[in-house]
């Protein structure tokens, strides 16, 4: 592997796409303002200059339409990367994603494939209110036939996206909007993170913190806080929730005997429920405390900063919960 540089998550995404487009002429990008504008977040700047408007395709504001178009394109020999500007717009493409893309391979008895990537984002606290702040990954994770990746840093953003583009299934990848400018060391060139392999960011013995996407850093910071109290927390990032690397999580919890699952989606019927219930079931005899869940509050995301900041789990909150677990207060 080549040199690592500190690049932003946004640059990592851009690099992953550029590399894969150079490698495979059937890869193209489609979405709103992806070409000259390079998306409103400027993530795709420069791609149209290198690959032209045939491969970096600006669409009308028609999410169901271009999602459907991408499904058909993928079925017939191309590899579309669909750019969905905000994760909240998933609601518009659900039929094409979940009734069509996710089921085509199965319904055709294995004859048709839909190798597409849907890139979108999650994350609140940008003061963007209820329709531009949702973290909706739990919804797509519920639908068999879809894979779901949640990069937690620039490194994962590159490695998971490159794997997603080469995957022969429909993959939905959620980037954290708040992390686009965060830097991390990312190798130049080939970085492929296999799906279904969790990353243990930090080893520990007292409690396991499972965090996804934006919540990985929250967990990491919580672990640092806890270290000051001599509580040793293991931090795990599943990286993909479909497929989910259950083994790494279970192995950790069997060692620490306590766990907290932290995710930025709504808590109710969300990602924390799936992971927590798997731990509770499969590490049952190892648990010293009930597995705790910390999702976003079950409220539409409010605009007011005074309210919005209350809706998302924080490092302090996670640390407090971990302390209680370790002290046997739960």
């Amino acid at each position: 592997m080549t040199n690592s540089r500190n690049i932003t998550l946004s640059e990592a995404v851009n690099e992953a796409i550029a590399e894969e487009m150079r490698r495979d002429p059937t890869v193209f990008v489609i979405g709103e303002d992806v070409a000259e504008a390079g998306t409103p977040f400027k993530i795709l700047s420069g791609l149209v200059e290198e690959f032209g408007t045939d491969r970096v395709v600006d669409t009308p504001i028609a999410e169901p339409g271009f999602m459907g178009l991408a499904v058909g394109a993928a079925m017939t020999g191309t590899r579309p990367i669909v750019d969905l500007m905000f994760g909240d717009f998933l609601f518009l493409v659900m039929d094409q994603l979940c009734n069509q893309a996710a089921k085509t391979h199965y319904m055709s008895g294995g004859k048709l494939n839909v190798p597409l990537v849907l890139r979108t984002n999650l994350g609140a606290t940008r003061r963007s209110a209820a329709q531009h702040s949702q973290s909706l990954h739990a919804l797509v994770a519920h639908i068999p036939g879809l894979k779901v990746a949640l990069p937690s840093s620039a490194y994962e953003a590159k490695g998971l996206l490159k794997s997603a583009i080469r995957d022969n299934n429909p993959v939905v990848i959620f980037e954290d909007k708040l992390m686009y400018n965060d830097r991390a060391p990312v190798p130049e060139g080939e970085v492929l993170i296999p799906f279904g392999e969790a990353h243990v960011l930090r080893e520990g013995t007292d409690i396991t913190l499972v965090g996804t996407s934006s919540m990985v850093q929250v967990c990491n910071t919580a672990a640092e806080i806890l270290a000051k109290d001599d509580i040793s927390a293991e931090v795990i990032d599943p990286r993909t929730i479909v497929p989910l690397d259950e083994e790494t999580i279970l192995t950790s919890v069997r060692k620490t005997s306590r766990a907290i699952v932290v995710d930025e989606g709504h808590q109710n019927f969300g990602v924390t429920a799936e992971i927590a219930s798997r731990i509770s079931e499969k590490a049952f005899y190892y648990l010293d405390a009930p597995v705790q869940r910390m999702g976003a509050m079950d409220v539409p995301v409010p605009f007011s900063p005074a309210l919005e900041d209350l809706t998302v789990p924080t490092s302090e909150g996670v640390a407090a919960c971990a302390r209680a677990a370790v002290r046997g207060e739960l």
Partner: protein
Amino acid sequence: MNAKKPISNTEDYLRMYRQMVRIRVFEDNANQLYLSAKMPGLTHMYSGEEAVAVGICEALTVSDKITSTHRGHGHCVAKGASFKEMFCELLGKEEGYCRGKGGSMHIADQSNGNLGANAIVGGSMGIATGAAFTAKFLGKDDVTVCFFGDGATAQGLMYEVMNMAALWSLPVIYACENNGYSEYTKTQEIAAGSITARAEAFGIEAHQVDGQDVLAVNELTQKLVARARKGEGPFFVELMTYRYHGHHVGDINREYYRPKEEEADWKEHRDPIKRFGAWLSKEGIATQEDLDAMQADTRADAKAAVDYALEAKYPDGAEVDMHVYVE
């Protein structure tokens, strides 16, 4: 019949006739399987609309693509599928086109360019447009035909993808099978204005054609396909047709939404097979005996396929979680 400029030769005519008969016979057998409780679930009969699927698909090559609907057997047969795999699919058998996983509403035959039936009304409009996108993107000269019913014109997706197809001159033909009804409702009660004008408003050339006249359909399609291959697409065609059966095989008492006389009139005076048969005889291309023999042949083929499918084995239970993901 309108055949001022016959582009096809005798063989083409006879194949078209045979394909229409094959669809009719396929549906008669499928209906029978339902009525005798041998088929799981429900299905939607294409009978009466044969000239649409055949007129269009006969203008396509094997590598041209189609997308189909819940009323999809006709498209599947017309695009080249064989009875055995089709009946196996309808009965949920392992040798079906989709290993029994799709059934009637999802039958697909990618070897002949049929990207599949769809149980979401209008659901395949994006897929068809995307297939046309691929052709342009990869520099192939394939054309895609998107079949859908009059009812599907109410789905917003259609306008979204027509807009893109028009902006990007994609080689796709939107083929609206206007059979006068969506489920139990007359088209005029659910479609305001004009269907062809809706396409035209997006700058798409639109045609209306008699969907019971296989030659008229074929002639128009040949022209549009040729032009689409040259990058002059997309096009829109509204094909005026009629379904003989109920909305689905279980829709038996339908007088409350359409009179028996109307059905009788279409069957009597506008049947696409009868009309084309009469024309073939009149032009001396085939005698009535030739045609009868073809019908008998086809019925025998269908019976053999049905018998085979009834005996064929179901997929093994272990297949249930195969094909969720590509390896």
